[in-house]
């Protein structure tokens, strides 16, 4: 193979640029604990500076203090219950001593909590009840409950959707030299959209359930309270009317999401 160059002058030689990378699947390894710590730090910072309202979201240190007090209480409870020497002393002193027996108390706390939850009569009801009721008392509105209940299904669905985007399409994007943001906007997001929308469907149904559950427990007004009242008065006509309103609400959500799917996913058969 002769090395002749068709053009007269010596041609520039350079290595072909690397265009792959960025979207590879790789284990996160050390990143996740750091993200977790960063998130907690941000939360603490937000609470201290006040842009996260302490009513909605108490700071991590407050939460930890509350946890310690609960542990102390359970230690005291344990000590008075079985008159053991070391623990009785702990009961007389307060938090200073508690610190020492913190870890034995923590175990006790978990055990008590667990026995409470593991009682089959208590389990599902108490968890939902305490969650919903406490949030309601704190906030007076249903927002946080519904926020938390709907946030995670959406996130998990989105994650799954992004994970499922055809790798070949991403590679195609890279081979045409598209920028990172173009690949995300034009390939990954539309590819994940079906999963995101079905996540929304799940979130919508959870939102309705939580809304009604919250109203049944703490509210004077609302569909949940209306149904509960009708049920206790054995007013079946009102009861069924309430249930019908709920169904219509659900159908409305489903219709809106159905329309969105029809519009955004019209490229599917």
């Amino acid at each position: 193979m002769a090395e002749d160059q068709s053009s007269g002058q010596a041609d520039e030689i350079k290595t072909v640029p690397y265009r792959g990378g960025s979207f590879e699947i790789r284990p996160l390894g050390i990143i996740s604990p750091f993200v977790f710590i960063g998130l907690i730090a941000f939360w603490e910072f937000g609470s201290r500076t006040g842009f996260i309202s302490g009513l909605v979201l108490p700071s991590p240190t407050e939460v930890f203090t509350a946890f310690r007090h609960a542990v102390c209480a359970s230690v005291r409870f344990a000590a008075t219950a079985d008159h053991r020497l070391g623990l009785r002393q702990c009961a007389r002193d307060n938090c200073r001593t508690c610190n020492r027996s913190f870890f034995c108390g923590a175990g006790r706390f978990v055990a008590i909590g667990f026995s409470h939850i593991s009682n089959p009569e208590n389990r599902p009801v108490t968890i939902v009840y305490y969650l919903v009721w406490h949030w309601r008392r704190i906030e007076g509105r249903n927002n946080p409950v519904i926020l938390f209940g709907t946030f995670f299904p959406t996130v998990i669905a989105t994650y799954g959707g992004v994970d499922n985007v055809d790798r070949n399409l991403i590679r195609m994007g890279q081979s045409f030299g598209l920028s990172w943001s173009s690949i995300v906007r034009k390939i990954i997001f539309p590819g994940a959209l079906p999963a995101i929308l079905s996540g929304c469907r799940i979130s919508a149904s959870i939102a309705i359930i939580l809304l009604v559950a919250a109203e049944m427990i703490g509210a004077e007004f609302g569909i949940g309270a209306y149904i509960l009242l009708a049920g206790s008065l054995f007013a079946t006509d009102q009861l069924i009317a309430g249930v019908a309103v709920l169904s219509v609400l659900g159908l409305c959500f489903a219709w809106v999401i159905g329309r969105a799917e029809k519009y955004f996913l019209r490229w599917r058969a």
Partner: protein
Amino acid sequence: MDLRLNNISHAYEELQVLKNIDLDIRQSEIVCIVGPSGCGKSTLLRLIGGLEQPQVGEVQQIGEPPPGSLNPLTYIFQDFALLPWRTVKGNVSLALEDHDLGSKERGRVIDDVLRRTGLAEFGDALPRQLSGGMKQRVAIARALSVRPAVMLMDEPLSALDSQTRELLMGDLIDLWMNEGFTACYVTHNLAEAVRLGHRIVVLSRRPGTCR
């Protein structure tokens, strides 16, 4: 612009896929790479286009790409790699949107490549409304729109039935007659390679070496 592969070797974990590959791809010539399935042809093509980096050796680009070439090394994939949510026009447009063309100029380029590939009437169709052969022609149109210096084709006809393959083969030959593009054409079909290629490189079973 020519490409030169210098002593390329590549392995995935323990698996040695390519070993000591030397290859020149010169301007206006179609180099066919044939070899059995799994011998590392696609891997070699990914290395040539810079989608992966070879562990040993390097791929060199000799001389400047012709002026006006937006994406010198452009792929045509076996599975077409069209975005199902974009129309034919939209799919061609995708390759152009990251470049500094006005929307008018972009529209002109799109119309031009669709006409050259015989897709002028299908500009607003979605990929699912097209047959396999048409989809691959869209992919070819998309590749042409960025005026590549070298086209890297990974078994572009393998997903098609034999009749369509015949037709598209004819189209590619016509295209080469008219425009004289440079290409590296990967296939496991020797007949295709003989018909299209100026030069044929045979890759042996793993680890792939040139013959």
